[in-house]
């Protein structure tokens, strides 16, 4: 159909000849759109950040949930965030780190040795409490001080401690302590009263 083709082309050429165009307005429009898009993306980005900040706390799993690694099947759950523990006014009491040797079961008046795994320097003063009631100290123990024949010794907490001199001797251990005379058989907790708190279990027979 050559005639139709020629006629259509002629018509297109005629319209092409009449056309006017402005290249600079093309560039201006494209530039305006680019700026608008960039500004829009910045706004969207800021909104996403704000939304993420608002949503993330809600995504934290409850503390009772098992850790993701322990789950029997792979899960897409959000890994639990690390919980930073703020130090409380009173250090948490831990039974165990204080290593009590020489005697696992000591008779009243007998001696035992306390050593510190952390090798930190401490004074020679300790507390002794029943393992059943570790919060109620029964005795204050004074470890052996080199050159002081009156040590090791101990006194009841109920006794007025006024006038009892505590030597300023410190060391990284080990410290030799004495079990108070007349102490009933049982399990006791011995804790440092100087430096970072360490506790250990002592059995008195």
């Amino acid at each position, binding site marked *: *159909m050559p005639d*139709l*083709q020629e*006629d*259509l*082309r*002629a*018509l*297109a*050429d*005629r*319209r*092409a*000849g*009449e*056309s*006017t*165009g*402005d*290249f600079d*307005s*093309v*560039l201006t*429009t*494209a530039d305006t*759109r*680019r700026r608008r898009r960039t500004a829009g993306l910045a706004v969207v980005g800021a909104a996403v950040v704000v939304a993420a900040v608002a949503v993330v706390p809600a995504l934290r799993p409850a503390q009772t949930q098992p850790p993701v690694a322990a789950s029997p099947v792979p899960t897409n759950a959000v890994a639990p965030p690390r919980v930073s523990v703020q130090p409380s006014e009173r250090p948490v009491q831990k039974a165990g780190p204080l290593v009590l040797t020489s005697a696992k079961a000591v008779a009243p008046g007998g001696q035992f040795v306390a050593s510190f795994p952390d090798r930190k320097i401490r004074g020679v003063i300790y507390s002794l409490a029943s393992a059943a009631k570790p919060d109620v100290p029964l005795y204050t123990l004074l470890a052996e001080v080199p050159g002081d024949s009156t040590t090791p010794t101990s006194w009841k907490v109920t006794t007025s401690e006024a006038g009892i001199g505590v030597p300023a001797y410190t060391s990284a251990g080990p410290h030799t302590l004495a079990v108070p005379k007349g102490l009933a058989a049982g399990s006791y907790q011995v804790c440092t009263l100087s430096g970072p708190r360490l506790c250990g279990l002592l059995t008195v027979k």
Partner: protein
Amino acid sequence: MRTAETDELREFYRVHQPRLVGVISLLTGSRAEAEDIVQEAFVRLVPRWQKVSRYDAPEAWLRLVAVRLSANRHRDGNRLTHLFRRLHADPVPDPADGYAGDLERALAELPMPTRQVIVLHYVCDLSVAQVADTLGIAEGTVKSRLSRARDTLSASLLLRSDDHA
């Protein structure tokens, strides 16, 4: 965009803008609308020029964008026409246009998909396969649309020739 690229694009615009307006005006039936559409296609080309300029035929990319834009406008225009049917008035033919005016009107009476096929095939010189590829339709569909369009245009132009006579 660098100055050299801007100059390249400016030259590309100078060569292809009028041609494309001619082609698109056959689809839209209006030169002014065709100019708007071609301008929009060029605006979309600007951020992609670095990539499109490396194509074998960058004008084919531009033509495809313009053809799709004209189809979209036609569809939106049809919706508006449907909504404001009472306000819609048929264009008044200009007797000075003669045969060209008849052809344009006959073309405007074809459905947009058929118009696209006939313009791409006869005016842009694309083969049936290329038209099918460009519009994303089967070659058989292109052939049947071409056949229908030829029949419709022939009949329409023949009738109008009788009117002019």
